[in-house]
């Protein structure tokens, strides 16, 4: 299966909350997470829940190196393909 942007938005919102002013959509896949208001802890939390939901395991070093939503999706889908 492919982990989609919708999956990421659900998990990210659950882990790090959401605001009306900045929302993650297909339009800002290449905007850095920091500009979207999500810091490194938010991504670590998101990666932890991704592991529970989708059994994809990223190391903390991999997670903290990720800058954009597109990179995040590429990483988790790559890891999912490796695991399959």
């Amino acid at each position, binding site marked *: 299966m492919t982990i989609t942007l919708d999956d990421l938005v659900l998990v990210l919102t*659950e882990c790090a909350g959401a605001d009306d002013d900045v929302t993650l959509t297909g339009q800002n896949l290449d905007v850095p997470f920091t500009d979207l208001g999500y810091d490194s802890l938010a991504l670590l939390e998101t990666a932890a829940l991704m592991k529970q939901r989708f059994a994809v395991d990223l190391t903390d070093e991999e997670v903290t190196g990720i800058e954009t939503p597109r990179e995040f999706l590429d990483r988790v889908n790559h890891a999912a393909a490796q695991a399959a």
Partner: protein
Amino acid sequence: MTLATPAAQETPERTGRPTAVITGIGVAAPNGLGTEQWWQSTLQGTSGIGPVVDYDASRYPSRLVGRIDGFEAAEHIPGRLLPQTDRVTRLALVAGAEALADADADPAELAEQDGYGEYGCGVVTSNATGGFEFTHREIRKLWTQGPQQVSVYESFAWFYAVNTGQLSIRHKLRGPSGVLVSEQAGGLDAIGQSRRTLRQGVKLSLTGGMDSSLDPWGLVSHLASGRLSRSDDPATAYLPFDTRAAGQVPGEGGAMLVLEEETAARARGARVYGEIAGYAATFSPRPGSGRPPGLERAARLALADSGLGVEDVDVVFADAAGLPTADDEEAAALRALFGPYGVPVTAPKTLTGRLFGGGAPLDVAAALLALRDGVIPPTAGIDRPVPEHRLDLVRGTPRHTPLRTALVLARGHGGFNAAVVVRSPEAA
């Protein structure tokens, strides 16, 4: 830094010391969320003490708490902050925002102005119990589901300093900041430290304290102190200075205050509630040492710091432990300072329970509004004052009288004592 003699150290501080005034108040209390609601409740004698309702506490030996009902964090806090904050931090953020709005001060804007700069505004708060409810939930995940399930935000959501940190981030309070942990005296120590930062050039410092730890684990921890009342009657469970005094009721909440250097506050046209004219802290000797407890000394040092005498004090907001020995000690200190029945004494915390790091800042807020309105809020429920205390306790109904100077006392378990002298702006 060179070593200086004590005299050389004290002189510049005393002569060149900036005047610290309070220009904003924010309150989260069991008998009122928001300053106005709480102050009305305080004057009307409306209590926020009641039975635990969030879980079954029927098998706990103490079942009464001062809980803030109807607090919906999502109505006040940005969504991004909800997953990473304990209830205590949410309360601190709400009260902090209220205090800054009340002071009509936006630190981000002030940073752009002459005399402020990026580090001209700071935040110093007190907290005694950390983020209990959040930690309770995460520790439960740890032992039921494993470490992978524990929120990464537990890393700081539990921590005493987290309220200061979140307030700093949210309001761009980047100047000298800190957190004071000295149990229930901490709120006054935070105000004292906040005042010290003005001497380092800070123009505005958000200060005060907040605590919340009434979840099942938190209540068990309070029980372990052995100081909680076992009464089931909210009206008589916490009765300081009463012959029936038999323990304390734990509550949640506190107050945030905007402290400013007076010249800067006047220059921007701020409304001034009053001055933090004096502050001191002492530590009591160990029990059984034969030496006297340190509360009286803290009061004398705070008065000396303010340049005022005992005859200037118009009202005392007492620590009011609700434990017979501690009440006797505080009454003795008050008699030694003011003589028998020498000054009106009150304890509006009888309506909220004890708020740990948040309690004393709430008393300072009450003192400021008492000075403003010329009214001493009453101590609730005290029908049988201990005759030997010889205190002029303000009981039952508010006492209307002109007020210029208030003394606020606080004690923390383990020996902490602190005192603050609050002066009305007209008198300052």
